[in-house]
């Protein structure tokens, strides 16, 4: 997938090696605007990040982002999947004027039914933004989680994920297995609810702190 499309050499090499090393884990990938976004299996996040850090040279974790896909989940029909695909974390949009060549090379077609697209889209996505210094390249790894599904904490690999994961726990209620100190970071401990979920109202629920 994406052969010859990635024009930043260290990123292209890293992706090659990632695909070879973890053929089952890499679900799909896309490249646009000098950004490579790779979706991997939830269970394999630690080995993938460990590989990227120690063998592919991505020595810095910039950020961990949590997203609630509730509004882009299909309303029940399998045929709705293509519209949600774009929002479910795989393909960055291309700046105006660029063609869609990158996605044509993907085994996972935007419109087709393949293994990845036939899975139901999941409620949450966690994105790990990595950076390689001094070559100055970025890569973004994402995993999808269903409601109440936990994900391994990547703090053993990148210590910088510590508070970012706590923030996602605070705002979304996602459990990070193995996090050294998983508790709320912004809101008081007794606060009920997870504000950044799409079904939590902006003004809050009465009865909160």
């Amino acid at each position, binding site marked *: 997938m994406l052969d010859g499309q990635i024009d930043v050499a260290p990123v292209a090499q890293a992706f090659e090696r990632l695909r070879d090393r973890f053929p089952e884990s890499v679900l799909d990938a896309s490249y646009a605007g000098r950004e490579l976004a790779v979706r991997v299996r939830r269970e394999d996040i630690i080995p993938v990040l460990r590989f990227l850090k120690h063998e592919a040279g991505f020595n810095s974790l910039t950020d961990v982002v949590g997203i609630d896909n509730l509004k882009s989940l299909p309303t029940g029909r399998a045929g709705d999947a293509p519209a949600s695909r774009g929002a479910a974390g795989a393909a960055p949009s291309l700046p105006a004027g660029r063609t869609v060549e990158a996605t044509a090379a993907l085994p996972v077609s935007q419109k087709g039914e393949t293994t990845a697209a036939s899975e139901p889209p999941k409620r949450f996505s966690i994105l790990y933004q990595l950076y390689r210094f001094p070559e100055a390249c970025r890569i973004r790894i994402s995993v999808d989680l269903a409601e109440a599904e936990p994900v391994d904490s990547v703090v053993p690999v990148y210590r910088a994920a510590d508070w970012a994961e706590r923030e996602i726990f605070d705002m979304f209620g996602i459990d990070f297995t193995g996090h050294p100190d998983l508790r709320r970071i*912004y809101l008081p401990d007794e606060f009920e609810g997870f504000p950044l979920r799409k079904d939590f109202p902006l003004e809050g629920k009465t009865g909160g702190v």
Partner: protein
Amino acid sequence: MTESGERHPFLLAKLDELISWSQKNSLWPFGSGLACCAIEMIATAAAKYDISRFGMELFRASPRQADVFIVAGTVTNKMAPVVRRLWEQMPDPKWVVAMGNCAVSGGPFPTYAVLQGVDKIIPVDVYIAGCPPTPQGLLHGLITLQNQIARSHPTLEIFDRDARRTD
């Protein structure tokens, strides 16, 4: 004569004027700098806008030593009990200035985490709008407070602890 029309004894009125004059010209702010407005508050205390012309350069770090609580910034729901406790620690007579839109009414944040106005937890004497108010705005608010204090009757407290200090 007070503004409500009651006759106030002459000597007490003069004493009122003296006490309120000395209070308004030596207000010691308790700078509770919560957010962006705090920076403008500090700029007001700095050399260009010079709050010390009004006798207010002595920002106290402890509420026990302060007269006027300038609530500068957003009061979140998590910070609200702290603000209330700080206000309770201030000795009488005390005044409160709500500086900035967040302290006045929640500002641009109608969210689950923000208290929509500090007057929900403590009584406010002067509201200063602005996001943030310029130093001139803050000074105008503080001068308004000084004028409010000038019209007040501190001696009433001697006879009636529950009397409101201003008309």
